[in-house]
């Protein structure tokens, strides 16, 4: 921080153009955090592998190798990570499962982000009666048991992967809305919001240009915490048999199946668990790193 002196109004020209944006500043600090950077790289590797890996492997999602039922991992047979009880290649299935798990995580988180941020910002900014009304609706949604909601959706629409997206997204935005509303209530008191009013800026612009960008720090951190939560929720649903349908699979389904054969074929449990665990670890480290990088106090 520059000190106030008599020459207060003069900064030298040479460093005048070297302004450092907040985003770049945060990125620089994130780069210094080794755990977060390793996590970021690993996440990218996992995502890319899940995307293109299945095309490089000789086995399809539902291809049965009649010569290898519950075969252990081996290099010779081409089943690098073994096969399941039906003779399907585990690596192939884990990568396909990763697509489902990661896409559920992305879509559900994105949905919760958009709804939650807008809902929370509007509720907090408008305040008064509307705020009470909107927040009571959130309370009601909270009080509905999640499983009840999912089962109800299943009964009405049948089993469908989009239902999982919808069900998880419909629940996850509640937390986000509360967080953003809290931020907004605090920001609303700040003088720059009042200055915007004095300039005659429209309410819509105040929300999008002043409130949301300043609330984005906690939001980003919460997003990285939501992603693992969503993956775990999907796994939980699939574990209970309410999730994705055969032959499609997800990490949760694979783990569920793996537990049945834990004694005779431990790799069926270990491989998908490892993928899931590494992803979640990475996300948590990345979340921590982002929180520190975006916190102005660490600057």
């Amino acid at each position, binding site marked *: 921080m520059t000190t106030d*002196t008599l020459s207060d109004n003069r900064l030298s020209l040479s460093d005048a153009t070297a302004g450092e944006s907040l985003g770049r500043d945060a990125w620089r600090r994130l780069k210094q955090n080794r755990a977060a950077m390793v996590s970021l790289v690993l996440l990218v590797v996992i995502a890319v592998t899940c995307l293109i890996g299945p095309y490089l492997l000789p086995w399809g999602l539902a291809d049965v190798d009649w010569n290898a039922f519950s075969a252990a991992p081996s290099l010779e047979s081409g089943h690098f990570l073994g096969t399941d009880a039906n003779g399907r290649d585990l690596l192939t299935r884990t990568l396909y499962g990763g697509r489902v798990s990661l896409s559920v995580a992305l879509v559900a988180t994105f949905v919760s982000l958009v709804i939650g941020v807008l809902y929370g910002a509007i509720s907090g900014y408008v305040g008064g009666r509307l705020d009470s009304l909107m927040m009571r609706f959130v309370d009601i949604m909270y009080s509905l048991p999640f499983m009840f909601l999912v089962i109800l959706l299943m009964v009405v629409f049948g089993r469908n992967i989009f239902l999982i997206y919808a069900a998880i997204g419909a629940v996850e935005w509640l937390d986000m809305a509360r967080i953003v509303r809290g931020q907004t209530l605090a920001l609303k008191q700040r003088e720059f919001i009042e200055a915007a009013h004095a300039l005659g800026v429209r309410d819509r612009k105040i929300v999008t240009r002043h409130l949301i960008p300043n609330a984005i720090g906690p939001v980003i951190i919460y997003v990285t915490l939501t992603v693992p939560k969503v993956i775990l929720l999907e796994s939980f649903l699939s574990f209970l048999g309410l999730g994705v349908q055969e032959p499609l699979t997800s990490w949760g389904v694979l783990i569920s199946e793996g537990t049945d054969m834990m004694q005779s074929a431990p790799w069926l449990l270990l491989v998908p668990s490892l993928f899931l665990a590494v992803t979640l670890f990475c996300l948590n480290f990345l979340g921590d790193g982002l929180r520190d990088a975006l916190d102005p106090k660490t600057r």
Partner: protein
Amino acid sequence: MADNLLEIDNLSVDFQLPNGTVSAVKEVSFSIQPGETLALVGESGSGKSVSSTAAMRLLPELAQTSGAIRFKGEDLLSVTPKRMRRIRGNAISMIFQEPMTSLNPLQRIGAQIAEVLEKHLGLNRRQARPKVIELLEQVGIPEPSRRIDSYPYELSGGQRQRVMIAMALACEPELLIADEPTTALDVTVQAQILALLKDLQSRYGMAILFITHDLGIVRHFADRVCVMRHGELVESGTTGEVFGNPQHDYTRMLIDANPRGRKAPIDTTMPMLLEAEDVRVRFALKKRLFRASEYFEAVRGIDLSIRRGQTVGIVGESGSGKSTLGRALLRLLKSRGEIRFDGHDIATLDTGSMRPLRSRMQVVFQDPFGSLSPRMTVGEVISEGLRVHHPELNRRQREAQVIEALEEVALDPAMRNRYPHEFSGGQRQRIAIARALVLKPEFLLLDEPTSALDRSVQVTVIDLLRDLQQKHDLTYLFISHDLAVVRALADTVLVMKEGEVVEQGNTEEIFANPRERYTQELMRAAFVDAAA
């Protein structure tokens, strides 16, 4: 010198930061004799607080200290942490600037004072209680035997500072370090606290290391003065010497940094620009759905009229309703009563019809850190109003106006791509002024625009405001608790207390000859005699 109570010898403090080392204090030496008051004076960033915190060994881990701090011959920098804990709060104690946050909000004040006694004198709860009541009585808390069980939120700012003083005095220290103890308080409360400190000092015979940026206080309070700047000691001497015959340019500048000059009187035939009648603002304390809500009336029926080119000053202490009144006049708050701006009855306009008028009446707020969005560049901040009121301008035209506005407030236009956190307080205040000016307003509400700034910066901002007023024929409503600033800028003054006008009239008349008792009290407390 064996009779020195505290001797600071060649003290340097460096902070290791990720982007290099910052030297906060550079080879500073001074000493305090028993029973005297030494004032450490400087502006923000001068290292005055860091040097005193170093004496308490309370600096953060990343600070590197060299030199020696001797308390009665014992080097505090090399004693064990255990020994240091025995000295802290016992032989040396400290009071801080923020009375609102220095007390634990979840503990009764009695328990917080008793903690010091239990720690250092080995008393138990029951033994400590009468002593705590005695201490509270000494620092002037009314009904101490009842107040001892209060929580901090039940006390006013001044009372909390008294509790902090009681805590610091609990073990009858030989040295009291007071770090800006009155800065956050209203002037009348400030005067009471200073009188209390003086009184307690003569009773206990303790030395006081008084850290402040306010030279007015120093002149009345200190025996000796040390002036610091950029971590260096530039001048020291007795108060009489330093004020009577300052040796260093910086000291001279600080002493002269009182707002000077007077506003040139305006033509009294100028038309009225803003007129308000019986303005009232109330806040709901408790909103109830089906019953009548409870209200607090912050502004209670105020009449006001400002001519074109005039500056009206509003003076008052915190809670007087002066800022609320200002916001109501700009229609940033709902109010009752009539407000006319240039003939338009704006009290009844809705948001949409108010918008075109907004470019003609602008505002500059107090807090240079809170009034700029931290995620917008300076250029974006300044051009925002242009986007609203002149949507026909293209990017380049907007940019040209931003550059012009920045030059007007004496900032380098090349800095428009930077973010607010890279600027000092005074620079941010200039940015806020540029944001208002870019719309070419006729009326400017200045809500304590200089209160958060150092004196020397304050003077430059005041000069800027004065120049801009002349150049653009601006009309100001200047809200401040700082009488010296108002005196330098305003044609007429309104003194407010508890939402009502106590006294109003021509600035010179009011300052020369205040009629109401409250105004007289304010003037005395603010040492305006010294500032003139």
